[in-house]
């Protein structure tokens, strides 16, 4: 991950230059490798366990129940099975039973559904971060993508299947890019801070969606006018599913699209001129400008590409398994915000985002009340446990900047003997 960034030792800022939040995060993202995110997660789970203990329940049993609820226990159920290959009637030997009627495999398919979306909303935050931008607008870009996807997907019933899905995904991505690019443009043109503008754009997406899908809105279904929900996505607009009963929220091919997006993210950042420029701006916009890079243009591009990822996430949810969108769905959804946690824990790298998305997807699914045995942990508390562990992870992700600062100052004492060492980014981070 960090070894692919040859320019990082030069990332140190000149003395007296006050580091921006993005610069500190950029440093923090490079430092500490894989150890700090793991320690962060472990501490968060430990603290969560203490809270469970305080409520008078057994934390080990609770975590075991959550683990079973995620469906990840499926991997421990080895055996000799004959399973049907997706899209065919061929039966082949496999070590795990893929029959989605079993609870473990069904739970796992639901975890992976969430992981799919979280990868994409995580990448939306991560890509902007690499350009030194803090994209809080993942939620709004996700909603925009979902609205466009449900609009295209529920119209033009006669269209050819492949074309319809492709068009819906394409327009959702473009819509996500468009709303995100507004924030990038404002930053580039007048220096409006992207944290403020993306939060404001979130509300624009929220209210546009509430209007469009609300009573009498243009996208509301025509069958039952008392329900503020869109029409259903027509058959030709649905993504194919490959694991589970297609009627019961089966895992769809969007999972592979999300994995593909991780590869695209990596390739784009590390193997293209655009990615090089984006990272250069992320490390130090002044130096990048001095080096001849058009910083303003890169702000717009980076935000637009972030918006593509989030918009794609919205399209995957609508075309893959939700098939409809309601006002309440928009109002209670927070998957774009969880994407921020995914990106931070995943250190804005492709592999990190993939793993963090799996962790958060599993956490959200595992702490749902259906997975938890009420005798182990009361269902009414379980939902709050999800939020608590999420919050603790975020807190420690934030707090480990502090841990790193302590760690780096200790290193500086150690380095004291090698006084000739060049100024390091640690100085700027403390």
């Amino acid at each position, binding site marked *: 991950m960090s070894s692919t960034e040859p320019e990082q030792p030069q990332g140190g800022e000149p003395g007296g230059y006050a580091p921006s939040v993005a610069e500190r995060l950029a440093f923090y993202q490079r430092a500490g490798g894989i150890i700090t995110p793991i320690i962060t997660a472990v501490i968060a789970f430990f603290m969560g366990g203490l809270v469970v203990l305080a409520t008078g329940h057994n934390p080990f049993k609770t975590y075991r129940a959550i683990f079973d609820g995620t469906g990840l226990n499926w991997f421990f159920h080895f055996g000799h099975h004959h399973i049907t290959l997706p899209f065919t009637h061929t039966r082949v030997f496999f070590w795990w039973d893929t029959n989605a009627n079993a609870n473990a495999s*069904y739970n796992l398919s639901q975890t992976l559904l969430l992981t799919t979306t979280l990868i994409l909303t995580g990448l939306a935050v991560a890509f902007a971060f690499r350009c030194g931008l803090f994209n809080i607008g993942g939620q709004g870009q996700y909603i925009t993508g979902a609205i466009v996807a449900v609009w295209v997907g529920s119209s033009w019933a006669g269209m050819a299947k492949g074309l319809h899905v492709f068009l819906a995904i394409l327009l959702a991505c473009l819509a996500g890019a468009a709303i995100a690019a507004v924030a990038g443009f404002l930053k580039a043109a007048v220096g409006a801070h992207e944290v403020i503008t993306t939060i404001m754009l979130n509300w624009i997406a929220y209210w546009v969606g509430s209007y469009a899908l609300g009573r009498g809105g243009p996208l509301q279904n025509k069958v*039952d*006018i*008392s*329900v503020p929900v869109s029409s259903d996505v027509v058959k030709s607009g649905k993504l194919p599913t490959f694991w589970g009963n297609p009627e*019961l929220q089966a895992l769809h091919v969007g999972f592979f699209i999300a994995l593909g997006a991780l590869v695209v993210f990596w390739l784009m950042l590390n193997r293209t001129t655009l990615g090089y420029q984006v990272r250069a701006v992320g490390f130090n916009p002044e130096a990048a400008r001095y080096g001849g890079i058009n910083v303003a243009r890169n702000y717009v591009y980076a935000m637009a590409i972030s918006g593509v990822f989030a918009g794609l996430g919205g399209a995957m949810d609508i075309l893959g398994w939700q098939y409809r969108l309601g006002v309440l769905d928009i109002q209670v959804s927070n998957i774009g915000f969880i994407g921020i946690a995914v990106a931070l824990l995943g250190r804005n790298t492709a592999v990190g985002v993939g793993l963090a998305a799996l962790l958060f997807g599993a956490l959200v699914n595992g702490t749902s*009340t259906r997975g938890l045995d009420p005798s182990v942990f009361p269902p*009414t508390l379980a*939902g709050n446990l999800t939020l608590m562990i999420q919050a603790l992870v975020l807190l420690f992700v934030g707090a480990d900047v502090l841990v790193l600062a302590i760690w780096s100052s200790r290193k500086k004492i150690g380095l004291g003997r090698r006084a000739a060492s060049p100024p390091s980014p640690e100085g700027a981070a403390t």
Partner: protein
Amino acid sequence: MKKVRFAAPLAALATVAVVAVALAGTGAAAPAKKQATPFKAGLVSDVGRFNDKGFNQNQLVGLKYAQAHIPGLQISALESHSAGEYLPNFASLARKGFNIIIGAGFLLANQEATVAKQFPNTKFAITDYTAFIPPFSGKLKNVEGLTYATQENSYLVGCLAGLMVKQKGGSQTIGVVGGVKIPPVDTFLAGYQAGAAKCDPGIKVLVGYSQDFIDQAKCKTVAQNQIDQGSQVEFNVAGPCGLGTLDAAKQAGIWGIGVDVDQSYLGSHILTSAVKRVDTGVYLAIKGAQNGQFKGGADLVFNLKNAGVGLGKISPNVPASFLKKIAGLRAQIVAGKIKPPTKVK
């Protein structure tokens, strides 16, 4: 936040469906009688979740009441944090062999119908939604609608409002503010109109809609308008939005009437409330399913007779003679001698 229902016109159809299910259900009812397999009842919340101090929470109360009053009943209440959880929640209860699974309102209708099709041997019920309209359309014989005959209790509050205005004199006008003009709102309004006319024949009932269930200001504006036209009682039929209606009544120093739950806690200006007992509905649905009285493909209607609808706390300022009059009308409705209308005039 109500759902469309047609109670009376489809009663005949309902009877046919009930007979059909009774014949088909004889086999299914047998295992429940065995002591070895306990009866299991599940409830799935909408995204309001069980701590919403209202619709979902009241249904959880009903589920817990059922657990306390039906020996050996096993319960499970699943919360939905997003619309994406409805389907897995229903499916997981069905897989675990729950005998009856109740969806807490119209938001869950589509997903409940999908799961009900996949698990034809599991019984499903849905609160405040009729089984006769899409997505169920009366064809899913393992889904029962739980509907509320709110025209009956609204008839009583209408009568009470009429009596109070008649006693006070002055402008013989009362008002009602509905959310959106949809059948579940209009049943309240129709009963209110008919009840008021019954007890104060010359009365004028002003009917208004706020076009909203949430925004209190919209209801308040409509109520204010009616008060300016001389309304002396304001009836709220718009959920949280209607708090604005009751607030307008309080400021104008006139009576307000609550809806869905007992809203007498709002102050001494509350005459009474037209209460919809979703907890009773959940309890009776479970009990019925256990006793083999499940009405698949049809509705279980909750009314004054089975205490599924009723009146909240009545203001102590109401004379005893009025209470007696109300009690008399109630008895006549229960006996079927008065049938309050469901269509607004």
